[in-house]
């Protein structure tokens, strides 16, 4: 059973004097139990909109979404019992201490309150977090730590985390990665949005890439990085001319590195390339797998990957 299942999920916002702004377009997605699913996209791509739809904070214009087998709207309460959520922009009750916040959230959530508080302390210790201060006194990084504690303290089967490591230092990011792997090893599921490609590459099993509210691809991270294309460096004994690769199937972005060396992108099988250079003396032929960032850019053209200052689709719609 898919832990998250969406079908034709669409969200459009009415903008005064303009056509509706479509923040999410016909999303079909399935996230399986026990995986870490990365959700990548630039600012305003629709990542936060998707997450807010999954949590029933906003309602879809069309389509359906199920989380843990529950319809996110009709069975919202049952669904939310099984989810831990960390918003991208975490705002909490400024006058409460972290300990009071944990206590409040545990009581509102219900169930075994002492167990939740005990687990919150354990997570806090791992993240080196001090529960004694008031929320308004914490740095962004410390607020993120508290957000993680609140999302994880009831050991939910599904974690939905929006930009979870923003503001965490590298050491804590390492701890976070370890915690996510533990969650996965326990058979629980993590759905995280991130603009940190290295993070996604390091911990995610699969990744969905979204742009302008449209899911461009859902792939296994290893398949995404190994299969789509390669960077090739070709060194010849004679003078290298880019024209020798004209019309070769799968070859693109040819550039002259130096007088004897060409660099280019090769998509698909290698045979057409090998046939095309069979008349030349090949000194060196190297292939390199693209980084996830390069793959990311192939989906987005020249757009920059997401910055640390997220703009939600809703905010975009309001502009």
């Amino acid at each position: 059973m898919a832990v998250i299942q969406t079908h034709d999920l669409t969200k459009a916002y009415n903008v005064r004097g303009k056509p509706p702004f479509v923040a999410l377009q016909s999303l079909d997605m399935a996230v399986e139990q026990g995986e870490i699913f990365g959700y990548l996209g630039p600012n305003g791509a629709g990542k936060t909109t998707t997450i807010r739809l999954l949590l029933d904070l906003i309602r879809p214009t069309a389509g359906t979404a199920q989380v843990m087998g529950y319809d996110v709207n009709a069975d919202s309460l049952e669904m939310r019992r099984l989810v831990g959520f960390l918003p991208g922009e975490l705002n909490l009750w400024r006058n409460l201490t972290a300990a009071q916040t944990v206590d409040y959230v545990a009581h509102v959530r219900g169930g075994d309150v002492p167990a939740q508080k005990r687990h919150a302390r354990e997570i806090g210790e791992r993240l080196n977090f001090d529960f004694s201060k008031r929320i308004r006194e914490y740095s962004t990084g410390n607020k993120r730590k508290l957000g993680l504690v609140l999302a994880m303290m009831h050991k939910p089967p599904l974690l939905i985390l929006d930009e979870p490591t923003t503001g965490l230092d590298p050491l804590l990011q390492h701890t976070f990665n370890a915690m996510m792997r533990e969650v996965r090893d326990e058979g629980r599921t993590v759905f995280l949005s991130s603009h940190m490609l290295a993070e996604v590459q390091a911990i995610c099993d699969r990744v969905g890439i979204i742009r302008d509210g449209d899911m461009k691809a859902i792939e296994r991270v290893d398949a995404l990085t190994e299969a789509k294309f390669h960077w090739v460096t070709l060194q010849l004994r004679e003078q290298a001319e880019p024209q020798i690769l004209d019309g070769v199937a799968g070859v693109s972005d040819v550039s002259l590195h130096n007088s004897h060396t060409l660099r280019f992108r090769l998509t698909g099988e290698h045979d057409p390339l090998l046939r095309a250079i069979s008349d030349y003396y090949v000194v060196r032929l190297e292939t390199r797998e693209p980084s996830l960032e390069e793959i990311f850019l192939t989906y987005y053209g020249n757009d920059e990957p997401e910055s640390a200052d997220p703009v939600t689709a809703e905010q975009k719609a309001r502009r």
Partner: protein
Amino acid sequence: MGAIFRYTLRQNMQAIWQWGGGLGALGLMLMLIVTDMDVITGYADLLDAMPEEMLGFFGLSSTEMITSPDGFIAFGFFAYALMILGVYAVAVGLDVVANEEDAGVLDVLLSLPVSRTRMIVQRIAAYVVITALLVVFSFGGLLVGSVLSDMEYNMGRLFIGTLNIIPGTLVMIALTVFFSVLFRRRKTALSVSAAIIIFSYFINFLAESASNAVLDMVNRFSLFAYYDSQRVVREGLVWGDVAILLVVAALLFGASAWLFNRRDVGL
């Protein structure tokens, strides 16, 4: 009641001391400055010299009522108490949904297994209790004043007058909750609610001052038309007025919950 009710109550205990204490202090001050009947009759004479229309501004149809200690308190304290609590009501009304929605805190709260209806009902219930407590607490000021004053007050009637502040305050809270749910923006809800309350007050003032069929008709929609503090102090609770205000408050609270359940949360 649930965790949200208890949390809201705990977080707003100060309001009981601050608003209730402030209101009580106003009543106490009035009782202390009125040392004998001469002060009251002097004040009534002063008002008598004013044009009849001006009496409406002070919530009076004639000065006869204020020539008794209880009437003077009804005029000097209860007539303004509801308007003063209008400020409290708008602040509290914004606290039910708008403040947390504007600050983004509601995303965290509503990601927990609590329904929107339950959240809003628990908060409203907490503020009903807080409002009742602070109004009753303010009566303490009148009680102390009556002990310190040489004048004879009917404290039973004054207590009923104090309780009579509650329904009108609840209507103003409900109005602000409704507009904050409707508009989704804190500032808009604040402006519209405050404007309606002030408009409502002046419509009532104009209708009391001048006999006019249109004004009388519009005045039916003013919440202040159902808050006759002098009559309450003189005759006891006007149950019809109380019922109308409570029904309006309940309808507005219900409409807010219904609307909040059907719309998007957050920006």
